């Protein structure tokens, strides 16, 4: 009885932390830049800016909950944006090119999973390798230049003022929210989600309980790749060029979003909602710093500080509940 209450309290606290941090950042800039920061236009802008990192963070949450890490997502975003652009240039239809962009992400993610489970190499090393491979592939396909391609209406996906005005937010934002809801159900309400948590908490025990760890891991990394692929096609929609150098270091933003949202790199904890809040927090911070004219170095120091504080709070919470 007391235990379940404590566990519930823990869950509430787990989400309360990132929520409070987000509220704090929003409140701070609302005071510093009144009537600008909270304007509808700015909120729409921030929401659109969150889509790429947010989508990456959904996939990354599964990976981190399972006790792994994926450093290749930034490169996968670039690869997928280049693939989409090249195919559009070759005359493919928009849905075809987008589908291919998403699938190349999924295929590379599956490759990550295969290498991790078959060769029994730690995810950090495998994905460090595929990070370079995917980046190199993107540059090769793009012939070391950005790829100019007809946007074929794709830019509408990331338009801040969407065409049917009743959408209010850009289609990309709705896609992010819908997929986040679906992923939250997958992680929280299905057997696959339970297995993901079990593997992250204690892989040996999970194996003893009869969970097919290898198969689950393969699915998890492929899923992460699919989300990165989708993020890459939207990156193309946003830039209207396929850029092999885009999203350099984005994997760190994505990991930071998950960690701020309560994900632990030791595995076994994390939530989709938390990760999305983390992604929004970083987007609001960057936007607020620009709005108030804060120099870049201050912004970088702030983000770094927030990551450490978020993890420190997480540690304290764990100690309190144990």
């Amino acid at each position, binding site marked *: 009885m007391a235990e379940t209450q404590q566990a519930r309290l823990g869950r509430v606290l787990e989400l309360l932390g990132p929520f409070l941090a987000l509220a704090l950042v929003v409140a701070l800039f609302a005071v510093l830049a009144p009537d600008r920061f909270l304007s509808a236009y700015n909120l729409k802008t921030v929401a659109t800016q969150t889509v790429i990192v947010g989508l990456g963070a959904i996939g990354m949450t599964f990976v981190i909950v399972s006790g792994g890490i994926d450093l290749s997502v930034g490169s996968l975003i670039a690869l997928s944006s280049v693939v989409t652009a090249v195919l559009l240039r070759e005359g493919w239809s928009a849905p075809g090119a987008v589908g291919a962009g998403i699938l190349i992400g999924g295929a590379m993610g599956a490759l990550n999973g295969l290498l991790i489970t078959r060769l029994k190499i730690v995810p950090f090393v495998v994905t460090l390798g595929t990070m370079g491979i995917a980046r190199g592939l993107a540059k090769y396909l793009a012939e070391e230049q*950005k790829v100019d391609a007809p946007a074929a209406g794709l830019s509408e996906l990331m338009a801040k003022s969407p065409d049917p005005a009743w959408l209010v937010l850009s289609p990309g934002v709705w896609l992010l929210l819908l997929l986040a809801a679906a992923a939250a159900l997958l992680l929280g309400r299905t057997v696959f989600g339970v297995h993901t948590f079990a593997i992250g908490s204690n892989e040996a025990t999970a194996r003893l309980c009869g969970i097919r760890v290898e198969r689950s891991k393969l699915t998890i990394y492929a899923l992460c790749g699919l989300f990165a692929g989708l993020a890459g096609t939207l990156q193309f929609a946003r*830039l*209207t060029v396929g850029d092999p150098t885009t999203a350099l270091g984005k994997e760190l933003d994505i990991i930071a979003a998950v960690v701020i949202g309560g994900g632990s790199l030791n595995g076994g904890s994390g939530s989709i909602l938390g990760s999305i809040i983390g992604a929004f927090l970083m987007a609001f911070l960057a936007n607020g710093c620009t709005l108030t004219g804060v120099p870049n170095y201050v912004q970088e120091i702030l983000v770094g500080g927030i990551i450490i504080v978020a993890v420190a709070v997480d540690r304290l919470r764990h100690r309190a509940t144990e």
Partner: protein
Amino acid sequence: MSRAILMTAMWCLAGCSSGGGGGGEPAAPQPGDAPAAAAEPAAPAAKRKIAVIPKGTTHEFWKSVHAGANKAGQELGVEIIWKGPVREDDRDEQVKVVESFIAAGVDAIVLAPLDDTALVPPAKDATREKIPVVIIDSDLQWDGRTSFVATDNHQGGAKAAERLGELLGGKGKVVVLRYQEGSASTMKREAGFLETVAAKFPDIEIVSSNQYGGATTESAYKTSENLLVSHEDVDGIFCPNESTTFGMLRALQDAKRAGEVKLVGFDSSAKLVEALGKGELHGLVLQNPFRMGELGVKTALAKLDGKAVEARIDTGVGVATKENMAEPAMRELLSPDLSKWLK
């Protein structure tokens, strides 16, 4: 040559005289200057804000642009907000900065786009929100921009060709070390150089013009070494930017041929200025980033005041040599004192 010096002298004059003489008679009409200091004193109640967005913030070139923008801002009583992409050379980061400034409701945006296509959508957004966008340094593939304020790179290359032709007495073997495929500004410099050599110096033979130095000094250095081995009898060399010039200079120094082979480069840095003084470098074509920042802001303000602005404003180039490098106008370009404008 002397015309180049005259022009730089004029820049300085235009820069230093904030109040008087709105456009002396010899100066080619500089549209950006007109609204400068004179104009109506009827300043709006709130200080107007102009966002200036460079490609990056750490490079020396952009510091000069910043200083120029600040100067214009102080003279005209507007607030300059300086902000580049956090991750330099990342298109998406720069798009975000532009979007945020639109949301912030700045009065005008001065932008040096990282990409001629990717920055078009946010620039259009800005115009839709009635925020004029002045493009500096590199162009955007879009007619809706208020103005394009930048170096005429083709002319810069032509000036380099004239200097090298003069140094070689109109004959000899010349190597062009290109910068990078797909870099519009340097490709124009290379084209300007090659066309001018072909037109004015028929006795100069271009022995190599298909080698690229690449993005870093390191890669330019390696390519230079290889070029010097395969073209031992080279008389003159042109390099279209700072990294290729420095890489070639280092390779010449290693081969103990610095000073003997005539080298004309582009852009300035402390090391290049030193080499110019030692006679290891025989000419540097210089852009005027300070003026780019200054005119960018002034043009944006002219637009806000409802004045006519020209679609293309040339910020000019100068050629620094060992002989003229001590002159104040050239000093200003080679190693500008920015501390006055950057706190």
